[in-house]
């Protein structure tokens, strides 16, 4: 049974909530994490969706683990969250069997050379450009972390637009012209690279690492997706579920109390502050000090708090906050007899051992067309897949000799289609995927597939309350970033109601398995409550 009173209540046991909960508990508060579902972790989960024994991750690329304070401050590796760091990170094979383009990890100088060699098959100039920028970004990692793992800079008379300052700074540090800031990520890629195949690969990477392709004003922000987080990805051994488990265990070890199947209906606003919550079953749970919500902005403020407690400015800004269509994914899961064997492997076998491969699009035009269809709210005709077959790297992902494949594809928002339409897509889309896939890897026939499953943005919304299926809990666009994420007054994690904090991925920095929001929200709370635990001051890392 739920004890009735805690110092801090965290609504939602997704990674932001788990992170925040662990830090608050270590700082001396008695924390309860209230999770609506039967288990914590949210998007950080692994399920045997196709057939038992075959592991499919929801989120797959753990590119923030090197930097994630939560991972290091709480020793998650020792709690069972172990990783692999594949050398061949991100690549594109082609349906005509042309040499693939593979980008390698930044773990060694040798890997940089391998990336260079691979791109040089098409263009030495592009190879030089890519390696040069990637190296610069690697050197700039400490600064990147400063940006990511801190509350956003707010406007001041000297710096009235921190987002533009960020853009200028990024471009300046990377040695690129300022005008790129006004363009889109696509403009940036086209400016930098000439090889069509490389452009195709990077268009897809841009989208999957959080930046929509053709949105203007993100030309500098796109550098983050392309050069900071790309090619820095780890695989969780066993499945990303182990990371969620380690996070939960870290919380348990600190003394956090968990309650599953505890859906919050209302945040109690009394005496001018957030005093606790009311669950769906009517139980009232009090918070002596604060309530923090991991749930999305609209759910938190409009449903749980209620408009009557908010100013018009806050209500309007919350309503105006957009979800999607960036970061809205459908996912393909397949249990296979054999891993894909790409035609392009005859030129370079590494493509069969590349962490993520882009399959289904050969040209920038195809990729652009795909994104435009999705932008227009349509189910894409061409499946452009962000594919991983992790059993190739970690045999525990599938029974002996078999393989588990997952692929992500950009899809319209959950509300773009009706339930019946989504059900039809769910039942049929994989057929289209497989037909396409076979042109890239001839062994991807019907008989190679033991079982398959398709998850739609609507499923994500139904299951995990991911709004519209948008894993960043808020569109990535100039109007909703940095000091405007989710909007100016709410950007420092404090809600309008005293003692209520906003900690969903719709805050700065954004989604992705980074636990950045949880950490940053903790910083603000630590300041507000004068908490003694401040690892950004005591560890050497500087953030």
């Amino acid at each position, binding site marked *: 049974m739920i004890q009735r009173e805690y110092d801090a209540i965290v609504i939602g046991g997704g990674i932001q909530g788990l992170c925040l909960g662990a830090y608050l508990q270590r700082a001396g508060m008695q924390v309860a994490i209230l999770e609506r579902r039967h288990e914590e972790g949210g998007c950080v989960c692994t399920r045997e969706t196709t057939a038992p024994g075959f592991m499919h991750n929801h989120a797959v690329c753990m590119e923030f683990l090197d930097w994630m304070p939560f991972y290091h401050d709480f020793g998650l590796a020792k709690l069972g969250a172990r990783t692999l760091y594949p050398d061949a990170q991100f690549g594109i094979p082609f349906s005509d069997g042309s040499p693939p383009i593979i980008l390698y990890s930044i773990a060694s100088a040798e890997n940089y050379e391998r990336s260079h060699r691979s791109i040089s098959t098409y263009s030495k100039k592009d190879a030089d450009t890519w390696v040069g920028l990637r190296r610069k970004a690697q050197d700039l990692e400490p600064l990147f972390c400063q940006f990511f793992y801190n509350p956003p800079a707010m406007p001041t008379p000297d710096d009235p637009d921190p987002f533009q300052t960020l853009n200028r700074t990024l471009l300046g540090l990377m040695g690129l012209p300022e005008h790129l800031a006004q363009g889109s990520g696509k403009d940036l890629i086209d400016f930098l690279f000439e090889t069509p195949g490389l452009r195709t690969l990077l268009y897809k990477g841009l989208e999957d690492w959080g930046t929509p392709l053709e949105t203007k004003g993100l030309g500098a922000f796109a550098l983050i997706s392309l050069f900071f987080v790309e090619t820095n990805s780890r695989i969780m051994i066993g499945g990303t579920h182990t990371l969620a488990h380690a996070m939960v*265990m870290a919380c348990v070890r600190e003394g956090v*109390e968990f309650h599953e199947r505890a859906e919050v209906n209302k945040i109690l606003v009394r005496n001018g502050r957030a005093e606790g919550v009311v669950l769906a079953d009517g139980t009232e749970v009090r918070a002596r000090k604060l309530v923090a919500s991991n749930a999305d902005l609209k759910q938190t403020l409009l449903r749980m708090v209620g408009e009557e407690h908010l100013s018009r400015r806050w209500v309007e800004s919350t309503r105006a906050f957009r979800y999607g269509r960036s970061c809205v994914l459908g996912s393909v899961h397949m249990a296979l007899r054999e891993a894909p064997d790409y035609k392009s492997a005859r030129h370079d076998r590494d493509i069969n051992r590349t962490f993520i491969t882009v399959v289904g699009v050969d040209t920038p035009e195809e990729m652009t067309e795909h994104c435009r269809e999705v932008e227009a709210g349509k189910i894409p005709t061409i499946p452009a897949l962000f594919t991983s077959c992790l059993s190739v790297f970690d045999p525990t992902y599938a029974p002996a000799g078999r393989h588990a494949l997952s692929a992500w594809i950009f899809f319209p928002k959950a509300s773009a289609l009706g339930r019946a339409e989504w059900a039809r897509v769910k039942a049929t889309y994989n057929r289209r995927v497989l037909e396409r896939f076979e042109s890239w890897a001839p062994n991807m026939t019907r008989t190679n597939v033991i079982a398959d499953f398709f998850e739609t943005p609507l499923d994500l919304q139904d299951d995990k309350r991911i709004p519209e299926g948008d894993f960043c809990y808020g569109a990535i666009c100039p109007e909703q970033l940095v000091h405007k994420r989710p909007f100016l007054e709410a950007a420092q994690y404090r809600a309008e109601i005293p003692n209520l904090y906003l900690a969903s991925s719709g805050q700065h920095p954004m989604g992705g398995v980074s636990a950045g929001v949880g950490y940053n929200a903790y910083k603000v709370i630590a300041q507000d409550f004068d908490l003694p635990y401040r690892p950004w001051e005591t560890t050497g890392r500087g953030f």
Partner: protein
Amino acid sequence: MERETYDAIVIGAGHNGMALSAYLGRSGWKVLVLERRLEEGGGLSTELYTEPGFLHNLHSNYHTFVGLCPVYDDLHLVGGPDGVAYGHPPVQMGSIFADGTALTIHTDMAKTHASMSRFSPKDADTFLRLYREVKGFQDLMIRTLMYAPPIDVNDITRALSTWKVEEKTEFFRARLRSMCINDFLNKHFEHDRVKAMLAFHAAVCGYYTDVVGLAVSFPFMLGKIDNWRIAIGGSHRLAHALWRQMRRAGVTLLPAAPVAEILLEGGRAAGVRLEDGTEFLAEKVVASSVDVGQTFQKMLPPGSVPLPVLDQVEQYEYQDGSLFTVHLALHKLPKYKAAAFDPDIDRAWVLNAGYECLEDFNEDWAAIRKGEAPAEPKLNVAVNSLFDPTDAPEGKATGLIRVFAPHSLRGEGPEAWRTPFREAYARKCVDKFLGYCDGFTAEDIWVARPYTPLDISEKLVNMVRGDWMVGRIADSNLLANRPSPALSQYRTPIRGLYLCGSTTHPHGFITFGPAYNALQVIADDFGMDKWWAEI
């Protein structure tokens, strides 16, 4: 390379491995548990197998030792913020018969008697006498048989003889050793339907009714016919509770860490090596909760295990059959035509829909032994949402239909479970189920997703051939014979290596017996203070 050292390493984080590790951890030992899968739990697995919001118990569904097993109390597994909340359905089980009649078993035995009397007042009386008699012996049974290292069945017989059991009880006889459950039922009961109900109870517990010798266990089982509990939120809640207790006891659990080899040093089990090459050292104990095949044939180097023991391992037998399940996401709770005869049937948990007499069971066992799925599936059905308000979205329900089925289908092997036969058989089961329903049709079923014997063995490697009891249930493979005479006391010929899983006494199912008993032996061997409940 530096290798981390522990007092004990436990292989496998099923409920037995976890329980043992928690006891050892609380005794002050530094313990490491290595689990092949990405998460702990083994058979304690609950997943969203159909649609968002529908929680399905993919393996263990029934917990029948709550309140009887000391481990629940010792490890604080029930209640509290970290423990499991158990429901205890008042209508424990029932049978629906083709002629529209039904029999129901209640926690209130007067009601059970009343229901049985409608078929045979004589049988109802007999049953009540049997139940009461067993209840009188239940503590003794548990103490001497279940939660203690096994004694030889000859010793049991001698002890019962000395005690003059045949003069003191109506139902316990030395003769039971040569009887199968069918024999026992035929001897004491007259009505086919009553016998079918009681046989069903045994079958769901993993006891085939035509296997000679199992009549010995049957009375004891009947004493628990009123103890079927449901873990609110799914069986995995018990795994979570164990995991949290392990954490509190300072136990380290590593997921995705399949063990390749048990390391030996000077004839002693000194540690393990994972498939990825990582090694860990154990100063006192390596305890394997996985099957004997993996333990002795895969993890130990040739020559390290005496040949007679290896022979016994090689000859280790598994159950003839496994389970085929159809997991259901329902738009509403089903109701049955038989409710006109007995309204309580609509609120019964474990439902027999298909077995009408003992011969029906015999037919199924015969089919399974021939490698065939029973042509006419006879179902055991459970709609957990009747008792668990959290396992389905508002207004919906989660359920399952189970059938005893072979792992290997004659002619095609286990891969046959991946052919269209899988869906066809599921449809057959669902159609059969619908035939018993009233006002509940195919439209009320949102998703019916099969889970086959092959799925069981692919997911839980330890459940060889999908055998969730992890070893044949028969005289030759129970008590001091399980897994073999040389290995039945949880020790192995290798110093420091212990067995603590379902291949040891008592057997599979959520009993915690193997772990608790292995713990006694380890405690004796290491002079540990037994702080836990004296059973």
